[in-house]
């Protein structure tokens, strides 16, 4: 029952997020979608992942989005609706992907039996990760560091160039 409520909430807020013209509204609806996903993670028996999802996505990434949306000038009023012949292909592609995916899910053998939920406690999960996959975790953190440094150098260097060009 909670699943149906949350699933409906996620899909509805996602639909709102991709149709709002004002960027801040879209970001807020995206936030609702992430919260719903975190609730689904909790229902699936992954409490650590749910907490991380709220902290990283709903916290950090959304704050980043909001900052950028408020820093740059988004001409919300100018974003007019596409004419039909432009958004119809988009709708068709989305619908085809959904149909193919649904067919794959339905036709895969073995999905008929309902399996018991496997709960992964944070302790088990952490032990598993750092005993078997510590190298991949380090690689991902290195990737984050590189992305951070790249973002910083991109933001600072190009800004200075531009002011020199204009002056």
């Amino acid at each position, binding site marked *: 029952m909670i699943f149906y409520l949350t699933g409906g909430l996620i899909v509805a807020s996602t639909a709102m997020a991709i149709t709002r013209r004002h960027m801040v509204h879209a970001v807020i609806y995206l936030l609702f979608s992430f919260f719903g996903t975190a609730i689904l993670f909790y229902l699936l028996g992954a409490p650590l*992942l749910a907490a991380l999802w709220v902290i990283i996505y709903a916290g950090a990434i959304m704050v980043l989005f909001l900052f950028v949306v408020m820093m740059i000038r988004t001409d919300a009023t100018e974003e007019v609706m596409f004419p039909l012949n432009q958004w119809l292909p988009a709708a068709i592609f989305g619908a085809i992907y959904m149909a193919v995916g649904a067919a794959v899910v339905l036709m895969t053998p073995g999905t008929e039996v309902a399996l018991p939920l496997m709960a992964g406690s944070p302790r088990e999960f952490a032990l598993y990760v750092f005993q078997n996959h510590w190298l991949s975790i380090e690689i991902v953190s290195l990737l984050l560091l590189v992305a951070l440094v790249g973002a910083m150098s991109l933001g600072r260097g190009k800004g200075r160039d531009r002011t020199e060009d204009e002056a």
Partner: protein
Amino acid sequence: MNGITHLEMYQFVSLMLLGLGLFGLVRRRSLVGMLISVELMLNGAGLSIVASGQLTPASAAMGQLATLFVMGLAAAEVALILAIIIVVSRRFGHIESNNLRTMRG
């Protein structure tokens, strides 16, 4: 709810997120809107991976680990792309993807 298992319901929700994100990616004009759509698609991917890990005989911890990687990837991607968006808006004064034609460094 006969015939449709929990796993299928979760996969349907994540598929819907994927389809809506794809639609938004094609439909949106500004770069921020396109990035929001990409985030929605990654959201669906994470949900699908966790549902598959928890509701099938596959290792549950493995699924959670994969979603952790998706999360790290998304964070790195968002940081980089938002920096690019800031640079673009500083240089061109707007972030409409239709009107961005030059790519000179």
